[in-house]
């Protein structure tokens, strides 16, 4: 049995650390586009059965409702080193999939909330979610070609009542460099919210 355990230790040693960043915002704001622009693999997705995933064991009774709705959770991967992997999870857009957000957010570095200036209200719920849970986030203004007017970040801040400390970054989710930049802004923002380095020992 000793050898079995040592094999398990060896296998565990092969597993990298993993970290998560969420890409949130309303339906159609460009979440999957952003994930795709920086992911090393084409975005993957999972399909979730709402009735089974939401309420657990006893919910088989719910099949009378014939709920065959599925949600695709899109995500990408950035292998930073053999020991560290970053996952980017695009949050499901529709309200009834909120139950998935808590697992996505657990232990996450933070979130990028993408905003389409033609439909500001579509991203309001995401801003609210991260503010309430004190999860670090930055706002990305995804500029769509069809948008009539380019809003200044401060106009967006005022329209969505975003706190002064939250970075608001214009971006083009299709561009790898723009997506990279907003990831950097988020990680820097998350670091700025940590307790001062001197306090680390007691943390």
């Amino acid at each position, binding site marked *: 049995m000793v050898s079995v355990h040592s094999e398990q230790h060896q296998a565990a040693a092969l597993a990298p650390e993993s*970290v998560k960043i969420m890409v949130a915002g309303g339906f159609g704001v460009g979440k999957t586009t952003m994930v795709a622009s920086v992911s090393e693999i084409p975005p993957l997705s999972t399909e979730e059965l709402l009735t089974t995933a939401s309420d657990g064991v006893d919910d088989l009774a719910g099949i009378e409702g014939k709920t065959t709705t599925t949600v695709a959770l899109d995500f990408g991967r950035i292998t930073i080193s053999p020991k560290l992997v970053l996952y980017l999870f695009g949050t499901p857009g529709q309200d009834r999939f909120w139950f998935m957000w808590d697992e996505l957010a657990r232990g996450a570095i933070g979130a990028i909330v993408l905003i389409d200036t033609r439909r500001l209200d579509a991203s309001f719920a995401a801003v609210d979610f991260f503010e309430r849970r004190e999860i670090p986030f930055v706002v990305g203004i995804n500029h769509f070609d069809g948008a009539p007017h380019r809003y200044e970040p401060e106009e967006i801040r005022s329209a969505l009542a975003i706190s002064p400390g939250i970075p608001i970054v214009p971006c083009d989710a299709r561009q790898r460099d723009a997506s990279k930049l907003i990831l950097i802004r988020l990680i820097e923002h998350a670091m700025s919210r940590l307790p001062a380095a001197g306090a680390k020992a007691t943390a």
Partner: protein
Amino acid sequence: MAEDETQWFDEAAGPLVRPYAMTGGRTRPGASWLDIATQVVTVPSASERLGLGPEHQAILDLCHRALSVAELASYVNVPLVVIKVLISDLMDRGDVVVRPPAQALQAPGRDLLQAVLDGVRAL
């Protein structure tokens, strides 16, 4: 409600029936703390595959290099709630080991964030 309205056949029943058949009707994983980003690796001397379904075997084949719970759900093409049950079966058998995300509950610390920052800058 008329009785015939509650009966499903063929494709109508498919999306719900198949995941439950795979997990023997269970919806709760033995290890409910499995996160979407938890890393799963196959133990090289994984025991005889007797009694394992094709989805279990697919996980063992895929995890010769570490993959996350979410990646496995996507590659095996089952919902997250199902893949977690299958993974916990394999954990019970000692066929896979898992590594939870860096900080399962709290936000990541400064050293880890710095490593991620350096990595993203270098992309």
